[in-house]
């Protein structure tokens, strides 16, 4: 087994979860209604918790301890896709991002549940229940807002159009793609993207929304190799503020 390929895979999954978890947690106390505020915050915590589990796997492969890895790297050392680091803006965007990302996340972990890297397969099975809720939440909201009022449909559609180029960045191929596939660790970004598209289409077709032809969408890659938007570093600075003041602080 090639550890470099495996670590690259783990890092990008973990960084996606940590950064999106942090972004979504920015809604805590500001959500559109109390119950949704709780639900969205809770899922943000799930994402951060899942990233901790992934960083712990990385630690067992010789990487730094989870706090150090999460709080001390610079932006260009993060492997998350650009989609998850974009600032929140309005709630429709956060919901659409949540939907597009989560659909990929769930399929990724479905594929990983049969990974030849046993600890990862175990973890994939462990978080299945959490991800089922995230899916239920995301799909229900998209169905609801994608077919209720003129304004809600227009807002979700606009956010969908805006987000898709960034969502394509989720599937940026790894330089180790073939090794991962051949060793049975992961089925690869191409397989993931195909299944993702089928699922996204299925949900969008249940609404009054329209999914643009993906061939006309120019993907935004770069995140997987550390090329990020100007929005990531400020997020990291804010997230690691306490850690930088006092690395021994517990909270």
């Amino acid at each position: 087994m090639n550890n470099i390929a495996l670590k690259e895979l783990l890092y990008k999954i973990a960084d996606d979860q940590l950064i999106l978890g942090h972004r979504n947690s920015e809604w805590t106390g500001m959500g559109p209604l109390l119950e949704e505020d709780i639900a969205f915050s809770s899922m943000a915590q799930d994402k951060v918790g899942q990233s901790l589990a992934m960083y712990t796997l990385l630690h067992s492969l010789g990487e730094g301890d989870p706090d150090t890895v999460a709080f001390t790297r610079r932006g260009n050392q993060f492997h998350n896709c650009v989609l998850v680091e974009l600032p929140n803006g309005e709630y429709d965007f956060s919901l659409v991002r949540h939907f597009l990302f989560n659909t990929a996340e769930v399929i990724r972990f479905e594929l990983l549940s049969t990974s030849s890297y046993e600890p990862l397969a175990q973890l994939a099975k462990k978080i299945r229940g959490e991800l089922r809720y995230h899916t239920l939440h995301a799909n229900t909201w998209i169905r609801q807002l994608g077919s209720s009022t003129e304004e809600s449909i227009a807002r979700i559609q606009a956010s969908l159009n805006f987000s898709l180029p960034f969502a394509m960045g989720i599937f940026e191929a790894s330089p180790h793609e073939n090794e991962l596939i051949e060793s049975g660790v992961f089925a690869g970004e191409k397989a993931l993207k195909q299944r993702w598209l089928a699922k996204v289409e299925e949900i969008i077709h249940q609404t009054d929304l329209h999914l643009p032809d993906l061939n006309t969408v120019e993907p935004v890659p770069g995140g997987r190799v550390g090329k990020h938007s100007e929005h990531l570093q400020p997020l990291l600075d804010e997230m690691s503020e306490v850690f930088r003041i006092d690395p021994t602080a517990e909270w």
Partner: protein
Amino acid sequence: MNSLDPRVNRLSTNTYPVPNEPTAPLDQFGTFEVFVQPKGDKPFQHEGIVHAPNLEMAYVLAKEAFTRRFVCVSLYVVDTANVAASPITEGDVNIYQRIEDRSDQPGEKLSYEIYHLTRRGKQHVHAGTVQAVNAQDAMVKAKHQFNSGKGICSVWVIQTKNIRFTLPEEKDLWNTLPEKKFRDASAYKGGDKLSVFLQSKQKSSDHSGHSDNADQ
């Protein structure tokens, strides 16, 4: 606005004028009743309400609002309008004494869920299911099937088909990562940390107090 919370400072509140007029009185979501099953061998119990635009959204929002911290194996929701509630009795009066027997009514028998409140301030707990032609009829049927004779001060009746149950394939919603101490306020040991902090402050101010004196 200038806040210690950077998220607040980022809000572009100036671009969204706050309307001066109050919103229309009915411009709100309706309420839905949430029932939770704490363990496989325990009955469902009423846990609270959520606001939502429809039954499915209510289910989604109820799941995190009521079961993210505590042990739970299942959950269901129903529109508040679909709950038929008896009055609540005072003292030791059993509510079923107030429900008069009626002869069987004609009509199609439907399935109704029955819930008992055994003490004021407690929760309604599922008592069983009856077949009846309507909610009133269901209370009469419940009186014969589930009346233990005492300690029941209110009855709720819900037609089974109005409930959004947890589907069998959704049961693993509560099969989550077990390491969730961060969801438990006591796990942060906030009180302990505060007293350590206050003590250290006390010490340093004692210390600086001495040096002030020494300077004088």
